[in-house]
């Protein structure tokens, strides 16, 4: 079982480079799925998101969900990168890359990882409105728990 690559960082990431990092020099991978979550402007009303995290636990929880995916699907690689700090609309927030011999394991595990990390990884989003008004914390959605419950 491969070790997952987990990074929590303020800097942007390069999804294509992370995909190439998993496949470089290998001939046993038949499918790579990359999922990138982006910051939306909410029709121009949002100036930025502020992502707070719990250093140490954030990395631990991402690694835990990655290992769970590796135990459930035959994967050749898993990468999860989650950003923190100020993120403006159009920028990326989160990256999940999964690689497997066949597409189904890669698709399903990427979907699973996003559902699971949303409900388990200690990150919190605060919205800074374009109006300059005081920002507010994003409320957790019951949908997210329901989505994680599918697995």
């Amino acid at each position: 079982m491969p070790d997952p690559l987990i990074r929590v960082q303020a800097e942007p990431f390069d999804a294509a480079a992370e995909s190439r990092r998993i496949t470089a020099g290998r001939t046993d991978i038949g499918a790579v799925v990359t999922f990138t979550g982006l910051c939306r402007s909410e029709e121009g009303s949002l100036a930025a998101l502020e992502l707070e995290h719990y250093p140490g636990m954030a990395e631990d929880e991402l690694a835990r969900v990655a290992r769970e995916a590796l135990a459930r699907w035959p994967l050749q690689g898993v990468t999860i990168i989650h950003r923190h700090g100020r993120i403006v609309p159009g920028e990326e927030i989160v990256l999940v890359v999964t690689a497997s011999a066949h597409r189904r394991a890669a698709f399903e595990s990427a979907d699973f990882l996003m559902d699971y990390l949303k409900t388990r990884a200690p990150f919190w989003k605060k919205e800074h409105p374009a109006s300059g008004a005081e920002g507010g914390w994003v409320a957790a959605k019951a949908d997210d728990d329901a989505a994680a419950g599918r697995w």
Partner: protein
Amino acid sequence: MKVLYFAWLRERIGKAEEDIAFPPGTETAGEAMAHLASLGEEYAYAFENPAIIRIALDRKHVPHETPLRDAREMAFFPPMTGG
């Protein structure tokens, strides 16, 4: 014990972390939270709805009824909204 607060809990309490000596007889994470809620107005406001607060002991999610035992770090935070 080292106690950490995140997101709106941190904002309501006005600090990110502190050391707390819990009174003897504080057995569980939930009891520790009840003690914190008694420390002042800002704490009472932060913990006004204890059922929604998530707790981590030594950086692992735990249910409120989990015994503290020899945990060194406890964190309180709202439901997560990453991803």
